[in-house]
């Protein structure tokens, strides 16, 4: 199966290796159009490696990855972004010496043309408009995360991959970031949201996958899931 043209993501039998070590183990995962899929899992469960493999940035991967009917395994990262898949990387990874505006504009230049413009990002995150000419390194962690999210959104993706956007941020700031997710969904953008924070992540998701030691340990809908069951599949044992 290669996935239909309107299916944002279909991953089958994905394995990711670092040398001899297998960090991702036969993962099958799909995202339906308009869906927010949460991936939860402890530190080291393979979540980041999974996203890197989608972006063709893993050292070595096996398996099949299709987005919107395209075989991502045969494409370069710039081609994947141009086709409408954008990543908010773990740890934000802004360009520290570039200004806020320059960081954001890079997202626009490498992406697809679409309805998300610089002005819209500034209206969603007014504090970025105030600080647009400051180097990114001078922003607070929360503001940097807004820039990282804005940079990915400006590529006008059809599928957005978010890797631990709440990591290391105060709860208030995390709340501000998560308030944006409905607006993103309203643009028709499908999402994978990766978090270690299970409660936060399940609250926004249509479906979730729990990763344990590189493999999928549980799949389900947040409303159907029992907390104890999730915890057992999160920590193993």
């Amino acid at each position: 199966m290669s996935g239909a043209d309107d299916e944002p993501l279909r991953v089958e039998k994905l394995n990711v290796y670092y040398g001899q070590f297998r960090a991702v183990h036969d993962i099958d995962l799909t995202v339906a159009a308009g869906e927010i899929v949460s991936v939860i899992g402890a530190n080291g469960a393979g979540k980041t490696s999974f996203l890197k493999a989608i972006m063709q940035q893993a050292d070595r991967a096996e398996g099949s990855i299709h987005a919107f009917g395209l075989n991502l395994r045969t494409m370069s990262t710039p081609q994947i972004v141009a086709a409408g898949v954008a990543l908010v990387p773990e740890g934000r990874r802004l360009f520290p010496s570039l200004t806020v505006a320059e960081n954001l504009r890079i997202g626009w230049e490498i992406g697809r043309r679409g309805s998300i413009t610089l002005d819209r990002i500034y209206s969603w995150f007014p504090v970025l408009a105030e600080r647009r000419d400051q180097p990114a390194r001078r922003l607070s962690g929360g503001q940097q995360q807004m820039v990282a999210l804005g940079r990915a959104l400006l590529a006008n993706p059809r599928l957005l991959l978010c890797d631990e956007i709440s990591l290391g941020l105060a709860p208030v700031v995390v709340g501000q970031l998560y308030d944006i997710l409905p607006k993103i969904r309203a643009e028709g953008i499908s999402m994978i949201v990766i978090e270690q924070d299970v409660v936060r992540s399940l609250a926004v998701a249509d479906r979730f996958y729990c990763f344990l030691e590189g493999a999928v340990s549980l799949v389900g809908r947040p409303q159907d899931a029992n907390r104890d069951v999730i915890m057992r599949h999160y920590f193993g044992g």
Partner: protein
Amino acid sequence: MTIDMLNQAIQGALIGGLYALFAVGLSLSLGVIRFINIAHGDLIVLASFLLMSLSGLLGLSPFVVALFMLPLAFAAGYWLQRLLLQRVVGESVLPVILVTFGLSIMIQNGLLQAYGPDTHKLHGGQIEVASVHMFGLFDIGFFPLAVFFTAIVVIAALDILLYRTSIGARIRAVADDPAAADLIGLSSGRMYAIAMGVVGMTVMLAASCMSVWTNFDPAIGPSRLLTAFEAVVLGGLGSLWGTLVGGMVLGIAQNLGAQMDASWQILAQHLIFLLVLVLRPRGLFPKA
């Protein structure tokens, strides 16, 4: 300070323009791609020989030929990066040094085969003998002034390219964090290649000025590299205007050293370099 010394200092400062032209390309590759191109001086010599052949063949001034060659110089730098240097960028500095050292030796021997060991100098025409009488005190050659002016224009253009254009922002982004750039779909390899293309253009311009200003032979590249490297380090890594000042300091030191004793010329250059390095290890205009 005597009038004569002042005159020598001014002439030396103008030589700094030539050194800066050599060095801006090195400064760019150090600042952006973070690698030391040992073959930088040899590439300038290679371009000088090309200019010699072409201006001889076409009967045109080397400056005119150099301008026409700029697109080709860009392409040469771009593909040198893509096909060769990109393979060793990143991991550690040693592979880069080995590969560019090998390139340096290949260029020197290739030129020796093609042109022989003789020393050459190109003719720039009237511009070489014209001079300007300044402050009623001394004559300044028109050509050194023009080279200095060219250096200012080149550095200003690079400054605009890097800090005022979107391609410049992307080049700086890759300089900041190449892995992050690759992760979000901004190909660091492509941006490096574009930066190296720009370096190629500065090499061509430097070659046109150098080949008219001084003698050159196939083996002179490394000594050019040394001076360029000193100018870059003196000015502060990554600072283009600092590179110009660094070149001027070296030129002034050479000329004032030569005033004291002819054998002091090069020694003074290196002594000033070491002195500044001791006092300001990060150069005169370190980047934050």
